[in-house]
């Protein structure tokens, strides 16, 4: 068995004309937290589907926990846990029954002791006989992670683990994911389009856009590649590119939507000149991006993560609809 938890070579998935995942190379070391960071529709979820054996790759190969995803999907599935974006549990069953079912599906014997430990770890012991439909969002999320850990998987996949959650629950989850990774020694692969999430949680990050890995490294490595600031401005009247390029310190100018993204040597140098050059009240909004994973993404793709791909709000709506449909 290899030393890596996940290895992929030339992993590609096409749906007709659309190439959702394009020759992805991955080598995820054991025991870490690996983040796939990118906008909606970049191919993050498709990569998870390929790595978990839910979908067959069009080309390329991958091994997860030492098993080939194409030839041994059942063995892959015995060694992975999965946490969904929208919390998927059987709401009609109690917490304990959900654990029981998971134990059956994973063919476990002697699982009860571990289930008790997990319930205690996630502080769910006194709610174990209640229907999970009556749990709060945070508790449901915890229950789902407990299910994912029950069979002692080597790798856990978390697809947008904190999407649609309020900030308190999100911070609690970050702590939990870190804790799970350290205490249970399980490798975590998570997808996110939240910059701060990738920064806070991941040892390694792959930035993904249009199905391609455009940059990989530790968050610190990625940020050190950037020595520039970015100014993301929105204007009430059209501004010409040449006008912006003439400003001191401007290295590049790209239009995006109603505004521009300027790559500058330092924001402090350019900003006064920017306001001086344009008529009063032309600038409606300015975002200053100091070196961060966001500015790495902007540098490579020319877009902000939340503006590339689909609308973030759609996901939130989807999540709400799922919740509503369940009640």
């Amino acid at each position, binding site marked *: 068995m290899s030393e890596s938890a996940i290895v992929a070579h030339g992993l590609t998935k096409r749906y007709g004309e659309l190439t959702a995942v394009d020759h992805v190379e991955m080598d995820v070391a054991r025991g870490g937290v690996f983040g796939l960071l990118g906008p909606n529709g970049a191919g993050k979820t498709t990569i998870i589907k390929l790595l978990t054996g839910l979908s*067959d790759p069009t080309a390329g190969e991958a091994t997860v926990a030492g098993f080939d995803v194409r030839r*041994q999907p059942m063995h892959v599935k015995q060694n992975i846990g999965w946490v*969904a974006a929208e919390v*998927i549990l059987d709401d009609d*069953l109690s917490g304990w029954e959900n654990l029981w079912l998971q134990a*059956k*599906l994973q063919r476990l014997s002697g699982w009860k002791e571990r289930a008790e430990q997990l319930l205690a770890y996630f502080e769910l012991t006194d709610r174990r006989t209640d229907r999970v439909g009556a749990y709060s969002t945070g508790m449901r999320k915890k229950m789902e992670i407990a299910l994912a850990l029950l069979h002692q998987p080597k790798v856990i996949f978390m697809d947008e683990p904190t999407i649609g959650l309020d900030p308190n629950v999100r911070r609690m989850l970050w702590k939990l994911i870190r804790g799970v990774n350290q205490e249970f020694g399980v490798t975590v692969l998570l997808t996110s389009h939240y910059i701060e999430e990738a920064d806070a949680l991941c040892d390694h990050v792959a930035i993904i856009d249009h199905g391609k890995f455009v940059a990989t490294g530790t968050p610190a490595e990625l940020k050190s590649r950037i020595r520039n600031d970015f100014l993301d401005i929105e204007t009430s009247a059209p501004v010409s590119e040449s006008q912006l390029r003439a400003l001191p310190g401007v290295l590049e100018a790209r239009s995006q939507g109603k505004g521009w993204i300027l790559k500058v040597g330092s924001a402090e140098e350019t900003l006064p000149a920017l306001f001086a050059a344009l008529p009063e009240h032309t600038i409606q909004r300015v975002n200053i991006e100091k070196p961060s994973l966001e500015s790495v993404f902007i540098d490579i793709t020319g877009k902000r993560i939340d503006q590339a791909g689909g609308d973030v709000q759609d996901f939130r709506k989807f999540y709400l609809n799922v919740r509503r449909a369940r009640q």
Partner: protein
Amino acid sequence: MTAEHRLAWWPRREGGLASDYVGQGSQFYGLYARELIKTFRNPWVLVITLVQPFMWLAFFGSSFATVSTSALDSLLHAPPGTGYLQFLLPGVLSTSMLSIGMFGSMSTIQDKRFGFMKRVLLTPTGRSTVYLSKALGSATRGMVQIPVMICAAYVFGVRFEGTPLMWAGWLLGLILLGFGFSAFFLAVTASSTDWQTPGVLSNFITMPLMFASGALFPAQNYPTWMQAIARVNPVGFSALLGRGILVSGTANWAYLGYLGIFAAIMVGVGTLVASRYLKVE
């Protein structure tokens, strides 16, 4: 599912490679138990399952109440003194097996839409295991009606013929019919994620199979084209098997054999279809 996957005649995945085989007994047990727990935990599912056959007997069975017994016997081609309820009961139980598959396939679509199917298929559980547990689960749910219906008929004053062995054979026939139709429904809706599909399908097959079966009226009164359908209609096999036993105490075991063949074909073909086409979400 990829194009080459679709075109392959044999499911590539399950058991395709000996080195990837993972036993399915535990998963089947877990999923089947889940079906039963969910059924019996929902009081309304139970109430409707129990009340519906009773309503059949009360309303449909009473619709010939004022017709003289001798006129009814000649219309039904039944032995003297049979009465419509006795004639009807095996038919109603048979036709009710037509709709039980609908609930199984609706709950499968719900599992797909809420992502639960994905949770299951991300464990070492085969698509055919999911399929078989659903089919057997909804067949089991359908069985609940049988004792209720028989008791209800007793309350209405109906008395039956037949030996315990014959009754066991008749019940087995009903189970096979229910299992076969559940298997059929689930296979046809395997790739569907639309709530409406099972209902549409149910409406589509229920009328012809119910009326062209001899379950509610004797097939002797049908035109020849309807008799032709009745001769190959499993609902009819079950109704005629039951009627022979319950009304005249004679069992035509060939019907049980046909029902066995019907169930075997449905479950066999359905398992193949589901192992490749059962959608994840």
